[in-house]
């Protein structure tokens, strides 16, 4: 046991060295870092404002949810997304790395490519947005009528972990596809940012095509809507009944399977940056 632990520590040493240097680098430009923190928090605030505007304009409920319930869905999604963005967000900029010829270097090192790309950066500025999400989540958990029985706390933890995993998988899928889509990488915005947006909405308002894409292909409903409906004791949507929320780990597994396939596909396609 001790040996595997120290083996793990040794294997992860290069990654930890890179991450530590990135963290030090971001903290050394203090004014810039503070501006970034405030910036991401303001982006989070405008996202909250959107929910507030839409659900306040509604006659009591919108898509079967009232404002408090909508904020619970929003906060679950926002927290999972901002944490995934902090760790995996830069994988979405793979097309830039390819164009600048930086990817070739990763191929030369004796470490898995995905592990290198994920650990090449960590965006501490997203802490601003994540903190806001924590505040909204705490408020929503208190303000809503939730039965805090034996299952609620594990459900909350499982769905947050799976939410981060699903959003992270989307970033990795985007990275894998960008090996092909160099100049057309905005395609991946459709499910990375479209998926984020979808996950904050009640699935009851989705058009049928959206239900297929963001209910199952990219399982965004499992990040926030379904777990929130379970917590609230609400029935869920037509094709997405609340009990499906317990299957969030399956959804996360599915998302990572497609993500790793897309990534493998991408790195095998890559021919080098020339020069």
């Amino acid at each position, binding site marked *: 046991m001790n040996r595997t632990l120290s083996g793990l520590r040794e294997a992860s040493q290069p990654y930890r060295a890179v991450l530590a240097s990135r963290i030090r680098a971001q903290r050394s430009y203090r004014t810039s870092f503070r501006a970034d923190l405030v910036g991401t928090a*303001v982006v989070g605030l405008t996202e909250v*404002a959107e929910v507030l505007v839409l659900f306040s304009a509604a006659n009591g409920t919108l898509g079967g949810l009232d404002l408090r319930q909508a904020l619970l869905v929003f906060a679950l999604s926002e927290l999972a997304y901002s944490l995934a963005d902090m760790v995996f967000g830069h994988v979405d900029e793979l097309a830039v790395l390819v164009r600048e010829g930086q990817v070739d270097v990763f191929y030369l090192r004796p470490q898995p490519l995905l592990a290198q790309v994920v650990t090449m950066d960590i965006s501490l500025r997203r802490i601003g947005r994540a903190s806001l999400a924590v505040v909204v989540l705490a408020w929503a958990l208190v303000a809503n009528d939730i039965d805090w029985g034996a299952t609620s706390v594990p459900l909350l933890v499982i769905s947050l972990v799976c939410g981060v995993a699903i959003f992270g998988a989307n970033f990795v899928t985007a990275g894998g596809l960008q090996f092909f889509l160099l100049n057309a990488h905005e*395609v991946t915005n459709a499910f990375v940012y479209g998926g984020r947006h979808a996950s904050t909405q009640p699935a009851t308002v989705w058009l049928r095509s959206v239900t297929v894409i963001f209910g199952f292909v990219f399982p965004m409903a499992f990040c926030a809507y379904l777990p929130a409906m379970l917590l609230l004791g609400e029935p869920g949507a037509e094709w997405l009944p609340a009990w499906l929320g317990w299957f969030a780990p399956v959804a996360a597994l599915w998302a990572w399977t497609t993500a790793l396939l897309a990534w493998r596909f991408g790195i095998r396609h890559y021919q080098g940056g020339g020069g």
Partner: protein
Amino acid sequence: MRVYARILAAGFRTQTRYLPAAFAGLLANATFGLLKSGILLALVDGHGGAVAGYTAGTMAAYAWLSQGVLGSVNIYSLAGTARRIKSGDIAVDFLRPVDVQFASIADDVGRGLFALIPRGLPSVAVGVLLVGMTMPAEVLPYALGAVSLLLGITLSHALGYLVATAAFWLVEVRGLQILYMGVAGLLTGLITPIWLFPDWLVAVALATPFPAVMMFPIDVLSGRTTGAAAAGLLAAQAGWLVVVLAAGQVTTRLGRRRLEVQGG
């Protein structure tokens, strides 16, 4: 003046070389169009068919027009000038016999106008096919709408330029850009029509140039605002454009005096 027209045409032609990028943008726009349509139509439905003057048809028109013009108006980013100030390339721009501000904006407007062809029109077509939307039957709203859209596109790039000149003082403007993206996304009416906001927030939005970027052109194009009121919106847009351009001239001149480029 002719030189700026040629820069504008060059910007337009640059984008013809990036068609896959344009279609990629269209796919992303259409995805958001579907997401917006779903929730906004549910909102109209919940109010028994009309909210803040929108019916299902005009709300769908809002959703798809706003996605359609997104490739042309600039809401998300600052002008490339910010990057050139940081790298020092701006020094070369100052040596050219053209106005730095006008040249930058003309280039961006040219690119934006091209985006209407592969992104704007198809986006509206997708909306008509998938969701169905109500558009005016007369010619006048489209004529006024075209002028309003041109003003909106120009204003958005003039704003992007003005904020980018902050780099003369700050050098690194990423935080400012994120901030700008957040505020502009809400107040331009990209996320929801500003007319759904509570009164105080409508007042805040109208005190800024942001609604003139996107909300006003959509109101005019969709026929929500017509006649003298529409002319009023166009005048407001023109007014903001003059103010923002003048401010950009001032910051460019002040910034030029502060500019310090190392190396040679």
